[in-house]
């Protein structure tokens, strides 16, 4: 099972957090700090796997990918395959890339709720739900289309419409 998805920049600022088992905010920050401490110490050109049982409990590992100014980190337990997780990060990034046309840190900062929507299509309750980036993208586009169409309906507060109908 996937325990958490963390996207943070190379200064350790979180850009996207998703814990599949609830963690209170303080604990989340602590976890991020320790993950960042581990990742920032790792030299380039070493493996993308880190055993994380000191941070997330026994049997957990994390896979990270360092892309431009961002770390994409997936934390999972031993029912998953490291290389496959690495590719899942790849799927996630590819999807973001298609979605934002050359994704960069700013896109992620400004659209973090869209990031959540995309991530929910890929990982659902800690399990890999969909792995085809095309399918994910289709779902995300459909959501944004529907949202757009429904957003044009009315954004007038209920109290105001109530007043009009009177």
């Amino acid at each position, binding site marked *: 099972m996937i325990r958490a998805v963390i996207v943070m920049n190379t200064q350790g*600022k*979180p850009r*996207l957090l*998703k814990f*599949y088992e*609830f963690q*209170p*905010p303080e604990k*989340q920050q602590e976890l991020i700090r320790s993950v960042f401490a581990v990742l920032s110490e*790792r*030299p380039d*050109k*070493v*493996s*993308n*796997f880190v*055993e994380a049982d*000191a941070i997330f409990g026994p049997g957990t590992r994390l896979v990270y990918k360092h892309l431009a100014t961002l770390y994409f980190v997936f934390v999972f337990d031993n*029912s998953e395959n*490291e*290389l*496959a997780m*690495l*590719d899942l990060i790849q*799927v996630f990034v590819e999807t973001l890339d298609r979605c934002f046309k050359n994704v960069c840190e700013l896109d992620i*900062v*400004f*659209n*973090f*709720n869209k990031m*959540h*929507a995309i991530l*929910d299509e890929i990982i*659902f*309750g800690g*399990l*890999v*739900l*969909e*792995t*085809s980036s*095309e*399918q994910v993208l289709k779902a995300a586009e*459909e*959501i*944004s*289309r*529907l*949202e*757009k169409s*429904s*957003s044009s*309906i*009315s*954004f*007038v*507060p*209920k*109290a*105001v419409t109530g007043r009009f109908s009177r």
Partner: protein
Amino acid sequence: MSSQGGWGQSKDFLDLVKSIGEARSKAEEDRIILRELEALRRRIAEPDVPRRRMKEYITRLVYAEMLGHDASFGYIHAVKMTHDNALPLKRTGYLAVTLFLSEDHDLIILIVNTIQKDLRSDNYLVVCAALTAVCKLITEDTIPAVLPLVVDLLAHRKEAVRKKAVMALHRFYQRSPASVTHLLPNFRKTLCDNDPGVMGATLCPLFDLITADANSYKDLLVSFVRILKQVAERNLPKTYDYHQMPAPFILIKLLKILALLGSGDKQASEHIYNVLGDIIRKCEPSSNIYNAVLYECICCISSIYPNAKLLEAAAEATSKFLKSDSHNLKYMGIDTLGRLIKISPDIAEEHQLAVIDCLEDPDDTLKRKTFELLYKMTKSTNVEVIVDHTIDYMININDNHYKTEIASRCVELAEQFAPTNQWFIQTMNKVFEHGGDLVNVRVAHNLMRLIAQGFSEDEEGADSQLRSSAVDSYICILGDPKLPSLFLQVICWVLGEYGTVDGKYSASYIMGKLCDVTEAHLCDDTVKAYAISAIMKICAFEIAAGRKVEILPECQSLIHELSASHSTDLQQRAYELQALLCLDCRTVESVMPLDASCEVLEVDKNLSFLNDFIQESIEKGSSPYIPESERPGMSSVSNFRRQNEASSHMLRFEAYGLPKPSPAHLIPQVSVSTSTSNLVPVTEASYYRESSQASKVPSVTDASSADLGTKLRLDGVQRKWGWPTYSSSGQSSTSSTNGVSHVDGVSAQSRDTLYDSRRQQSEVSAEKQKLAASLFGASSGKTVKRATSTHRATKGNTGNAERMAVSTAINPETSTEKAAPPPDLLDLSDDAAPTSTPTADPFQHLQVLIGATPVDNTVKAVGLESPNLMAFYTDIPSGSRKTTSTIHSAVPSIKKAPLQNDETARRVCVNPTGNNPNLFRDLLG
């Protein structure tokens, strides 16, 4: 921002994000966010906030919470937003609540109703959003509220909904398996769904179910194989291809499931062989994902019933991984190697140099994995090299968690495979020195027990030699100023028990050392307690031997200081020591018998020694003790309490629980009072009650000569396993080719020393070859090992026999098919048992092992061990271990299960009770 689209945020929010992005420090960032939260708190409470604005507020709250600030004032607004009819608002609301709320948050109950409504919605996106929330927020209590709705969704027209419904059910299963057991057949149905996405999602719950109980899903094996075949033959839609690989994630999940289903089941495994071979052949070795699938194939191959052809393919793939430049692949290679050597141990030899390269790799993850591999392949022939390397590595670890783990591994290996006693003691010293206080307390207690009881049951000489070598090494080490407290406790204990036994060191010398220890560790009461007890023991031994005890001035001042200590425990010990010094030889000998730490103490739980006292009191007119349960008043109270709990969940009115008298608390009180009244430590006497045959000091000459015999033979072994492997021709040819590739790596690391490295080339590779030979050179050491009939070799054999028994219980075919490798042959050198009686029935074989009928050399050695084997199986009740002989025969069984026998561990270190000082410190402040 061209990508804003329908996700639009106001300028305010963009400004906020921007200012956070530009914040120079964490403090500045915090300031901005706090200001923002303050503003939000005000605005969000305003009446009639436009809904679009509210959506944005919620988004900002999520953002603030991501940065680590508390936004709980907005939770209720997020919950309210889930009620909204407009889809974007609803989705934002659900997103926010799933991120904000924990499972047991009070607000959840407000959402359940909305979720129920939304699960029935016509808009499938609403249903999806609700399902996401279901996964995160629904707990055991609320499952029944949504379960029927989720089950209905399994037949939804949209595959996205079906998929998520399957996952939600899986989540329910994880939360509370009992709630969905009647629905498990549904997973079988969705496995046949037309949509591959739904099928793939179903594999997740099935994987969990099969992990829990493989047997009830054996019938699905054929379908899984069929699906696997179809996926591998690209019968899925093209959209599932990933880097030219057909649906790799589904493949991986399927392979995992097959590995579980085929494990130890020959018939099932035969179904899998073909398709596995196909996948390995068909995959194009180009991308990362290919390797992921290949890795999973190897895992599957090593898990199912072994097949020679597939194993060969797996070995080939493993060597490809190991030779790769990518660290990721090397990591995977080490992992698969660890799996494969369990089945065919000789694979490791081929890759020895690659493994050693990984040991020296700068990548810490890879190093750790390699040490794990070494740990798995440790046997008595290579234990020294592996443990030494592991300790060297341990020294440089900063991560305490991992350091603890490594330390306990070293200890475990040393206990299991130690070739000589000296080596064992030295290894333990190193572990304590570098592991510090991270080492588990039990390790220390175990070490004390091992030193006290010795390794072997019949060689008293070897034991005393072990003890004196321990004493020697501890005396040397004591100069080190920063030894961990735990290690000092061990040292004090050993010096007290055995410091003067062999006459090498004088009593006053040892006592001086012990005083130094207490001076160097002024604030550690436990160490002090151990030290003063040790001094007391030495004094006692001296007095008992009829010699005059000279108390050194520093010792005297120590006693003086401790008798005024804040810790009552230390005080008591000091007074006991003073009292002991005034006693005569006979009394001292019975109070503190020599070498009595292994004696079994009988704890009289009924406190029968108090019977007379009680009788006397009753005769004098005291009322007899009535157990709590039989007291009339008590029962009514407890009845009342029960009633109260059942009837209402109001406040509890009874003030505090009644204090329960426990024997553990009573005993120290008694001992304190008696020791102060008549100055004779009564408790000590009860500790050392059984002193009948305690003072048996083995004559020194006898000991050394007996030990010399075994010692010499052992030395021979050490030489033999190390060198011949290295010098054997086959070995050197393979390593020379690999050696070149390694030296490339070295020179790349340090370009400036190019010439040097060229000169060192031969040197370095020779060193590595030596290391490789000592790690992997099991094949040549095979015959040598058998000649030494030390108890450890036989232990290996019994272990092997057990393993065989276990494995044959799983598949009865193993014994009849000689060609099939036994599943677990880690210990290559000790597999003499299967070769001696190759086709015998395994149970008969076991009987031979137990029943002391010597067949050949090895079996004879096993026969000698037979009582241990029995002891291991029958688990002697503690009452029957009164006499020394049974204790000795029980020793190896304890050693095999070092942590099981707590009782003995506690008994050995009975003198200074670690808890007491703290207890009193708490009480006295």
